[in-house]
């Protein structure tokens, strides 16, 4: 019996299948979160969306010899899927950084052109530090709009938090007030999803994998019972709990990075020609139980379960 088979059986024993509970479960439930997120099987949910992250359009280099086509192929694969998501979120680093403001804008324009053929017309973008840190988000706003915003979908309140336009990687007091005011209008039991780029918790600050004032954001979020965070930045799948809040990092669509602190340098992992997905991919997020739980399915570049 493979490890995955054992894990699935274990989850069946727990009676939680592939569900990733947003909150409300202690002990076994939290263990289930991490395991289920890795070995889940797709289940019919209330709805599902896709999380794509860290496309770094404009990047060139040995870590991804196919950089010019990876995103385009992914758009084609998503369009070929018989079941389309309600919407798609891009959690930052849409483009690779450049010191040249004109090149930055060219990359953003090209990125928009590449994703424009997506059949799903509701697409929510978020900035990453590569998009927004060098000019405080000026170019990003021109092409994609607000750096932070909210939207609602089928009973779930989504809060998009900008922790990149300040080069210190901070949310800042002004946005903090905005978050507090927004949450004050939302019922304490309502499901909330936070979309952001950097981890809000100190995942590995030695590599700048943190948000300078993320602890304060988490304190604000903890006033609500069902909060789940989806983010990018670290170019790999990661699952973590702070109290009852689940934090899920997505893979990248340009190159994978090493596990936190596993090597001295956070350099991209070498391109492996024999690997079908090269450590890249995206995920489906299926809302369950009225948005208090989520079923995550990790997909490779070919759209198959990774």
């Amino acid at each position, binding site marked *: 019996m493979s490890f995955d088979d054992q894990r699935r059986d274990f989850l069946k024993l727990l009676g939680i299948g592939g569900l990733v509970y947003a909150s409300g479960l202690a002990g076994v439930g939290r263990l289930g979160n991490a395991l289920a997120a890795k070995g889940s099987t797709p289940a019919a949910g209330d709805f599902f969306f896709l999380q794509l992250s860290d496309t770094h359009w404009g990047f060139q280099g040995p870590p991804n010899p196919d950089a010019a086509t990876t995103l385009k192929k992914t758009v084609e694969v998503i369009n070929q899927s018989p079941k389309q998501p309600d919407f798609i979120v891009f959690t930052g680093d849409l483009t*690779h*950084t*450049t*010191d040249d403001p004109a090149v930055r804008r060219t990359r953003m324009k090209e990125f928009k052109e590449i994703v424009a053929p997506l059949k799903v017309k509701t697409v929510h973008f978020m900035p990453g*530090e590569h998009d927004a*840190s*060098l000019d405080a988000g000026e170019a990003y706003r021109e092409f994609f709009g607000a750096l932070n915003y909210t939207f609602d979908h089928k009973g779930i309140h989504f809060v998009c938090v900008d922790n*990149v336009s300040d*080069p*210190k*990687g901070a949310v800042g007091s002004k946005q903090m007030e905005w978050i507090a005011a927004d949450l004050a209008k939302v019922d304490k039991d309502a499901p909330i999803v936070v979309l952001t780029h950097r981890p809000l918790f*100190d995942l590995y*600050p*030695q*590599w*700048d994998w943190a948000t*300078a004032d993320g602890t304060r954001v988490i304190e604000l979020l903890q006033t609500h019972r069902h909060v789940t965070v989806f983010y990018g930045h670290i170019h790999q799948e990661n699952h973590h709990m702070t109290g009852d809040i689940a934090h899920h990092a997505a893979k990248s669509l340009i190159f994978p990075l090493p596990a936190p602190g596993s090597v*001295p*340098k*956070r*350099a991209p992992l070498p391109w492996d020609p024999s690997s079908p997905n090269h450590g890249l991919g995206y995920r489906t997020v299926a809302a369950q139980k009225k948005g208090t739980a989520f079923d995550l399915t990790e997909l490779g570049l070919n759209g198959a379960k990774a």
Partner: protein
Amino acid sequence: MRPGGWGRALLALGLVAAGGLAACKERPAPAQAPPAAAGPRVIPIRAKKFSYTPNRITVKQGEAVVLEFTSEDRKHGFKLPELGLRADIEPGKVTRVNLTAPRAGTFPFACDLFCGDGHEDMTGELVVQP
């Protein structure tokens, strides 16, 4: 020798001698060197896109040192989370960070102000010897 030549030569000799004496005065004699206990050791560190020089700093556990940062191009950051240190490094200024390492080990540090394509490479390590 032209008239006045000896006079100019003597004057020049005198200036050289005076300069030599002055130089001798400015050069501190070993006996006059400040004692080691006068202050913490200062370690200059230059920051620029996308490196610190030096990027490996060695100190003794319990030794008081001052990390003296300067930037050669733009604003950078210095963050050493495991010892709770962070600072902004701005061009035209000297940023001093006092450090007395409480325990031995190797502690990574990095720029935490996004500074461009290569920011992720701007790292270093503090080696604290027991």
